[in-house]
């Protein structure tokens, strides 16, 4: 027993030493690949660009106004509105006299002035009785008119900020609190504290600076709110420290989309009228967790921002950016092994392919870990951020590894790399946008990063739910790629599809047939062969899951009458392909005998494997995905069984098993007869599966 442990330990130590040796060699090679000159050139380019953009921004020449001058608005030069139009980046003023609507102008500002005024040519704002915006009768005209209104609003806001009489300029001070409905409220606290408006309002939400003012509000919030609120209260506290005197200023960082005058937030600070410096502060210091749930805001009505974790999202995105550069280098390194048979010497060494790949991957994984930790330190994330990003990085590397193993040329690799970047970035990023809205957001580990940056508590279960699927997916991808890390696949120019089939077929073994006399060969060999089929199919589940989620997301924008039928067929197709592609690979590569008996046997095994794996992932129910209508269509067969008699329940429970087995057997028989028959059988199986799905949806 102890001997056995010792032997295993020794083998492990040898393996680790080998992996490390390859890793050392790879990192030496990689740092030689990108030589100092290239690195210096890259850094110099970045510095120059950063300098130019920085100077541009500082001097006001540059600005990221992609919508600059997209609407042309006719306005007289002496009209008080011309200044408002000129100040709005998206509007270009044209002389009202010469402008013709729809041709050289999209909207025209017409002012009605009081009789008797404006005799000397210029019109004072106070004399304007009414203003009308005439817009061309197009969507562009409507958009232009809306922009004019916004421009006038922000112009007014700027005027008011310059007013010496703050009380008249900003007569309303708003204190916004988020409260859960179940929480008993201490009504007096809010009322008592709201008589501020004299300097104290800035620090109110921070809760730490309330020594200066006597509001019961700040402390009241801390006392009767939930844990999540408390942690975000501390968050905004740190924020207030960074920003300076006004704690409510963080709203200006996150509000640039929805309201054109985000910098108006400092308005209620009667004592502090340094509008310019506040603007800079709001821009330069990214406010972490700004406008999150539970973070209270104080300010003029214009400063209210809807709860949207804009800044946290932006910072979470920063974690993904370095991955794109990393996988470029990694993909190149893997493909380099394959061009001109360069990797052959390594293959003939006693190192196993797994050790080689682990060694080659290790430096990049380490680089990802270092970069992620650095970013986490910079943006104020904790260990949770690093843990959450780890599976994302692993999946980036895994997908690139598979891509580099399948690609035939650098050109192909480039597209694979871009594809991997785009797909994974959207998969990680898009759900995170809905962080505070729905628990489905947790399918992306990036959601954890957003939570971490907002300072909200996350349970261990949530972390597991969020990171485990992606980690498993990454492991499976490496497994897939390792299957073709062998001489006959590495150095040959096979099309991607054939390599993919190779990679699948490697995982299968022949199914022995019982000599045609109806006596099945009992025994382990047969079971093991069928077991490997079932396991291979079960492994497709994470990818099926992702593909179905993407289908739901893409079809989300269509009207329900179109999206539901399309979705049902798409999902049936995805599942049928997942179940039968491995079988097709087995038949094509000659692993399985092309007989109906074998086809039926492997079909049965594959369908069962899929059924078991699907039941294991019934956790989707737990996160409430089934509440969405589209979600219900996609994952119908794991929910909605309550309130039925036991026999019907059992029938319903095993109905998917019958479906999967029957459909896959049909596809399998087709697969055993060649490509055309497989395509036909797959279509049939998909239609049958879709019909079943329709039945389930209409039943539910």
């Amino acid at each position, binding site marked *: 027993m102890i001997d056995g442990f010792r032997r295993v330990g020794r083998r492990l130590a040898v393996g680790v030493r080998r992996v490390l040796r390859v890793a050392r060699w790879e990192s030496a090679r990689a740092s030689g690949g990108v030589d100092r000159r*290239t690195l210096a050139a890259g850094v110099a380019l970045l510095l120059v660009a950063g300098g130019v953009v920085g100077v541009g921004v500082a001097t006001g020449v540059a600005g990221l106004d992609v919508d600059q001058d997209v609407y042309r608005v006719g306005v007289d030069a002496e009209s008080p509105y011309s200044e408002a139009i000129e100040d709005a980046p998206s509007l270009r003023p044209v002389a009202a006299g010469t402008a013709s609507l729809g041709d050289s102008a999209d909207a025209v500002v017409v002012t009605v002035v009081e009789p008797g005024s404006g005799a000397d040519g210029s019109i004072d704002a106070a004399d304007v009785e009414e203003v009308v915006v005439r817009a061309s009768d197009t969507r562009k005209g409507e958009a232009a008119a809306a922009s004019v209104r916004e421009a006038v609003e922000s112009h007014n806001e700027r005027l008011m900020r310059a007013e010496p009489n703050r009380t008249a300029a900003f007569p309303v001070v708003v*204190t916004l609190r988020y409260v859960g409905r179940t929480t008993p409220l201490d009504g007096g606290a809010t009322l008592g504290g709201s008589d501020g408006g004299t300097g104290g309002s800035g620090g109110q939400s921070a809760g730490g600076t309330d020594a200066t003012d006597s509001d019961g509000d700040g402390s009241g919030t801390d006392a009767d709110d939930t844990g999540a609120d408390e942690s975000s209260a501390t968050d905004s506290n740190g924020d207030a420290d960074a920003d300076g005197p006004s704690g409510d200023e963080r709203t200006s960082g996150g509000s640039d989309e929805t309201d054109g005058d985000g910098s108006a937030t400092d308005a209620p600070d009667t004592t502090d009228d340094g509008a310019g410096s506040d603007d800079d502060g709001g821009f330069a210091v990214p406010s972490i967790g700004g406008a999150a749930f539970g973070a209270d805001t104080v300010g003029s009505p214009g400063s209210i921002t809807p709860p949207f974790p804009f800044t946290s999202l932006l910072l979470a995105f920063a974690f993904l950016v370095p991955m794109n550069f990393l996988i470029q280098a990694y993909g190149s390194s893997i493909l380099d092994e394959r061009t001109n048979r360069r990797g052959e010497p390594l293959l003939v060494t006693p190192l196993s392919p797994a050790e080689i790949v682990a060694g080659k991957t290790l430096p990049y994984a380490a680089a990802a870990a270092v970069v992620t930790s650095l970013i986490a330190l910079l943006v104020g994330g904790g260990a949770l951020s690093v843990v959450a990003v780890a599976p994302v990085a692993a999946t980036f590397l895994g997908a690139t590894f598979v891509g580099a193993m399948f690609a035939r040329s650098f050109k192909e690799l480039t597209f694979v790399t871009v594809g991997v970047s785009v797909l994974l970035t959207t998969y990680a990023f898009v759900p995170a946008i809905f962080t505070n809205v729905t628990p489905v957001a947790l399918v992306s580990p990036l959601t954890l990063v957003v939570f971490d940056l907002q300072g909200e508590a996350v349970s261990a279960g949530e972390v597991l739910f969020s990171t485990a699927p992606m980690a498993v997916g990454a492991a499976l991808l490496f497994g897939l790629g390792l299957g073709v890390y062998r001489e006959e696949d590495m150095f040959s120019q096979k099309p991607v599809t054939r390599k993919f089939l190779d990679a699948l077929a490697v995982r299968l073994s022949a199914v022995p047939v019982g000599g045609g006399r109806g006596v099945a060969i009992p025994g382990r060999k047969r079971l093991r062969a069928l077991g490997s089929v079932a396991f291979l199919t079960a492994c497709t589940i994470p990818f099926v899951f992702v593909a179905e989620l993407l289908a739901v997301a893409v079809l989300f924008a269509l009207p329900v009458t179109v999206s539901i039928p399309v979705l049902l067929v798409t999902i049936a197709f995805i599942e049928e392909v997942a179940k039968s592609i491995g079988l097709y690979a087995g038949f094509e590569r000659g692993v399985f005998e092309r007989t109906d008996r074998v086809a039926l046997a492997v079909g049965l095994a594959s369908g069962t494997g899929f059924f078991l794996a699907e039941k294991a992932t019934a956790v989707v129910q737990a996160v409430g995905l089934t509440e969405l209508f589209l979600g219900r269509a996609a994952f119908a067969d794991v929910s909605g069984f309550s309130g039925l008699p036991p026999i019907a329940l059992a029938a319903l429970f095993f109905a998917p098993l019958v479906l999967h087995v029957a459909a896959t057997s049909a596809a399998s028989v087709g697969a055993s007869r060649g490509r055309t028959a497989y395509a036909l059988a797959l279509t049939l199986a998909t239609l049958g599966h879709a019909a079943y799905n329709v039945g389930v949806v209409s039943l539910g």
Partner: protein
Amino acid sequence: MDSRLTIAGRELAGLRAEKTILLAIGIQLFIATFSSFLVVGLVSMYDPGALDGAEIEVAAAGDAVDDLERAASEVPGASVTPYEDADAARSAFDRNAADAVVVTTRTESGRVSAAVTAPDSTVETTVIVVQLRELLRTYELNERDARASYLEESPLPLPDRSDTSPYFTFTYTVLIPLLVFLPVFISGSLIVDSITEELDQGTMELLRVAPVTLAEIVDGKAAAAIGIAPGQALLWLLLLEANGTSVANVGPILALMTALTTLVVAVAVGIAAVAPDRQAAQLLYSVAVLVLFGGATAMAGGPANAVARLAIDSAGATTGVLVVAYAGIAAAAYLGVRRVVAVEGFGR
């Protein structure tokens, strides 16, 4: 000329054989669908009008409640019910009879203090807060009007609200430039790979012993890379047209993007010629493109803004000049790089 066409044809045949161009178009389609999905999703979160008739119910209390009711009558999508005191309003909120509570109090300093309570962590919170902001801004305007005599500068009267779709501006200023410029980056990346691959595998030597000059090789490869870009952009513009988004000035847009493709391809050829291997070349290319486009977009009248203005039909004479200027820069850059490569060769 003939040999250039042969080289260009060989490049395109390689792309076709690997079906990479299909993958490229697939990626672009994916980006376009997803960014649209993103915007539709976000807008339906932000624009209560997009949700049918979303109206919020506000429980109000305090001594300034009448004015708040007056403001609510001017705002579509918010109605105010007065309650006797703050506790009554709060209990209405707690039993779900109201979406939010606003307690307005007049302070000694002459201001109005509004204590707003909104529900925590529900899907509707965003909608509620957006509507509350609208209500309170109207309220602020009314209060400001009442104090207008104390102001030095009176604010300008606002024009009426108009109905507009928030994605209109997005489509023209983000989506169309994005779709037009994606093929540009792809073309540049292609030529980096094409040249470094030939150098790496030694086939460039074979090409050199054929009766073609280096300049002709560069021309042929560049022609293939530049040639496939406008077609892709045109495809996107036609697709948008079919979807009901009319794009103006298609010709100038394609001219501008072809000029930019030429510029990027020139940069890519230059980088491929000097970089030691493919890895370094791709890295430098990514950084250079990032710098080039980041810098250009940040400047006033950058290419993204120019495309937006052309597409939305707000282009002036300056935009035309800009297109010509980009074409001039691109031609000069390409000819310069071609000459250097023809003289120096691919240096490794």
